[in-house]
């Protein structure tokens, strides 16, 4: 079971359709829009980004028995939805001296193409629109909350806060509502949202581990860095430096603490009694594997460090005699 490549044909159709749609944009926007499409194209050589927003409709389509044509439409909407929120993020993250407001008009074109299929599929009084509103509100709150919590309340993130952070990607769940309502099973929205929230939390934690240097430089006290503070019994982010963070990674339980949450999320996915999504479970397994690999690599590097400097020199510079 391959959560990406089992749907190569469908995703190829989706990306082709997105390219054709972008071809209808005013010419001044086309290059930038196509750059987005190329950068996040699952078929690009070296593509290593997350792809849940494109593939989730097909995974849910299998579980909920939704027509393949509808899954493709919703996946295409997912691409433009992703780009719309990328534009929002880019404008929100503008550094002093930068100017990104030119992206906003393009963002609006993405917004139209993201919402258009839903307007065709769901009447005004559909439950879908209530769910859509909820997800937009979750996203809006989450994007302000992290800054508000850390910089204003000066509170360090806890495990209970992770769901709010994961709601930075809440719009992914629009797919849950769409597929559940279309399959005639609106009661599935709750369980699907719980499972996708779990996956988004794991994805965020993996991002935190990967981006700790940049987060530290930018003063973002992520959950990962909050575990480093906990290791040293500190509450002041300003007390950290890169060396301390590295030592916490090698000699503390930082990675294990984060991995435990990912494992708990995996159990949640596997224990869903009625609306289990095998492809979502398979996708989440890649996160488990990533954390297991990370832990193993850290342990190997620690072991090498403990053998001492002369051993490391022999290993690196001259493994075999001349």
């Amino acid at each position: 079971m391959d959560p990406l490549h089992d749907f190569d044909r469908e995703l190829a159709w989706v990306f082709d359709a997105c390219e054709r749609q972008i071809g209808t944009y005013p010419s001044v926007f086309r290059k930038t829009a196509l750059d987005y499409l190329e950068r996040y194209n699952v078929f690009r050589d070296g593509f290593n980004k997350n792809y849940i927003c494109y593939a989730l409709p097909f995974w849910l389509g299998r579980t909920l028995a939704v027509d393949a044509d509808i899954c493709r439409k919703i996946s295409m909407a997912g691409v433009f939805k992703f780009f719309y929120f990328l534009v929002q993020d880019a404008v929100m993250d503008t550094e002093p001296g930068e100017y990104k407001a030119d992206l906003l008009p393009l963002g609006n074109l993405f917004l139209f193409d993201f919402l258009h299929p839903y307007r065709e599929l769901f009447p005004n009084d559909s439950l879908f629109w209530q769910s859509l509103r909820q997800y937009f509100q979750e996203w809006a709150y989450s994007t302000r909350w992290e800054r508000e919590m850390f910089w204003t309340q000066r509170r360090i993130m806890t495990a209970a806060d992770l769901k709010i952070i994961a709601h930075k990607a809440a719009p992914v769940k629009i797919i849950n509502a769409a597929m559940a309502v279309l399959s005639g099973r609106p009661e599935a929205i709750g369980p699907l949202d719980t499972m996708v929230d779990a996956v988004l939390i794991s994805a965020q934690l993996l991002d935190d581990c990967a981006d700790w240097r940049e987060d530290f430089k930018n003063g973002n006290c992520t959950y990962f860095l909050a575990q480093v503070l906990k290791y040293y019994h500190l509450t002041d982010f300003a007390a950290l430096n890169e060396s301390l963070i590295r030592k916490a990674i090698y000699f503390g339980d930082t990675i294990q603490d984060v991995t435990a949450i990912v494992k708990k999320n995996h159990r949640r996915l596997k224990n869903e009694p009625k609306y289990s999504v095998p492809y979502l479970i398979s996708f989440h397994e890649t996160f488990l594997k990533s954390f297991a690999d990370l832990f193993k690599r850290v342990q190997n590097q620690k072991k090498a460090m403990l053998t001492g400097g002369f051993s490391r020199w022999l290993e690196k510079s001259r493994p075999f005699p001349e």
Partner: protein
Amino acid sequence: MGRKKQPKKVTKQIIVEKAMADEIYRQKLIADPKGTIQEYFNITVPSDMELIVVEETPSRFYLVIPQFHNEDDLPYSPDDVGMAW
């Protein structure tokens, strides 16, 4: 016709084990670590590297604290994983 033997990788363990087995080598290693490693293993230890050999006794042991290598690359770089979507 025999298969060509792969040269053995020289590790710290091999260097130290030989000192436990070979008395003449042991004395040479203590007296002149770099010269002895060059002589026996054909490995040139750089001149800017200080190498000290110590020997435990029944009542004197050593705890060596390695240096923490802050410049090492941690296993992940930001390009290893994608966005949370």
